[in-house]
């Protein structure tokens, strides 16, 4: 799809490459430069600021009915972000593999949900985002971002916590923090999640890239119980009334696997997106 696979994957899926979770703990201050004041590395922080500003202009243009301006801004943002997507959808079983790598993981408040609901998550039972890597050791440096605190988790605790959110119907995505470093694991839903909304509502494709897989229903196993219905955030899953079976539109599927983890009959499985000619370039 992009350099995430081409250069960061190391021959495989980029987010399963331990190198992409490796990060230093310290940086000496270069002469004449002040302390870091933004999240992520400086290059990414600058890019995010530009993207945020452009997005604000796009929202304003849309609100004013200036469709041509809106489309132009979105097209430019997509072009710029193509080489460095913001996040990718990841199914639960691969989240478990990521957590096995053993970097610092800390549960924390979802900043998207804070924005959409104007409320903060203040304890482990409320947190729905997870920070990854050595950057979390300095979380107190950004008290406004981490209002409500953070809670460091063991690998076992982290897995149980993500499984909990999966059962609650939250899909998982890994956030790239710039510098080719995976810095966050989010448990998200529509319409709270910023990247999902940016992708679905505004057409910012690189803000949330589809997963490596698409889901597939084995109609011989599906008994039409409907447990998977309502789990899909992307309108890819429907109930075929004429067959009384679940059906997935693979062009719409993001490969989050929420339908798979809900199916009591193992009727839903994953297909490798890259191996399906019609979907290999649908990200």
């Amino acid at each position, binding site marked *: 799809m992009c350099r995430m696979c081409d250069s960061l994957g190391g021959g495989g899926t980029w987010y399963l490459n331990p190198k992409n979770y490796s990060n230093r*703990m310290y*940086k000496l201050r270069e002469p004449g430069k002040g302390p870091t004041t933004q999240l992520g590395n400086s290059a990414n922080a600058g890019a995010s600021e530009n993207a945020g500003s452009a997005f604000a202009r796009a929202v304003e243009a849309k609100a004013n009915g200036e469709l041509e301006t809106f489309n132009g801004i979105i097209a430019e943002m997509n072009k710029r972000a193509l080489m460095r997507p913001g996040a990718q959808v990841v199914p639960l079983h691969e989240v478990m593999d990521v957590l096995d790598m053993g*970097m610092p993981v800390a549960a924390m408040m979802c900043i998207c949900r804070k924005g959409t609901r104007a409320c903060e998550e*203040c304890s482990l039972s*409320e947190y729905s985002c997870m920070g990854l890597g*050595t950057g979390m050791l*300095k979380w107190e440096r950004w*008290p406004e971002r981490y209002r409500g605190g953070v809670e460091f988790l063991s690998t076992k605790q982290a897995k149980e916590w993500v499984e909990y959110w999966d059962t609650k119907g939250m899909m998982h995505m890994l956030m790239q923090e710039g510098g080719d470093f995976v810095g966050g694991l989010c448990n998200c839903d529509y319409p709270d999640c910023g990247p999902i909304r940016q992708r679905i509502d505004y057409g910012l494709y690189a803000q949330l890239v589809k997963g490596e897989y698409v889901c597939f229903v084995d109609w011989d196993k599906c008994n039409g119980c409907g447990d998977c219905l309502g789990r899909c955030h992307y309108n890819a899953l429907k109930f075929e009334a004429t067959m009384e079976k679940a059906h997935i539109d693979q062009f719409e599927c993001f490969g989050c696997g929420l339908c798979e983890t809900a199916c009591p009959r193992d009727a839903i499985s994953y297909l490798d997106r890259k191996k399906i000619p019609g979907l290999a370039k649908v990200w």
Partner: protein
Amino acid sequence: MTATRERQRVVLPKDYTFDLAEEMVDRIKNEFYPHDTVAELAPKVAGKAPAEARRIAEEHFRDYGRRWMDRSLELGNQYRDRAYETLLAAAAKTGEMAFPFIPERFIEIAYLSTQPIYSLPITENTKNAFGYKMVFCDTIENLREQCGDALADQLPCREGCLAAAERAFTANGFDVEVTQDASIIDGDFCQFSVRRKGA
């Protein structure tokens, strides 16, 4: 959840220091400056046969590496910062994370204090492995200038890096194997890997 409750739980900024103490960096730099250790080595290898010069240099750097890391461990524990305190607390709470992050801190302190870099590129830090690379190395440059290309091309200074990395982990209770994966003589940088034995 009420707004009042949230407000009460806001984490307030404190006078925490998250960076390495400049005084500590200066102290280690003054004691283990690559130019000075190579200057100590130069008369020892002058006029020696190549194999003997290499043996002497490797032993010199092994000793240097151990002392360099011992001092980094000592001063690193004396000059604590908030990131380290958070790491210690998180490691105690989770029962994980001590490997590789506690030794990593001291390795970063050692290199950042003595080499012309602002950050140490980390190639891996997972629960069983740690790796880093050195792109701009003053030691090899000084070795080339003060002892000549013939000795520098043998890269005896690798023994210093290997010894220091091993010391950082063993001093923190980890049984590890340290290897060199890439050499600045053959490419653009040296790279070292640390793996837990039995993992």
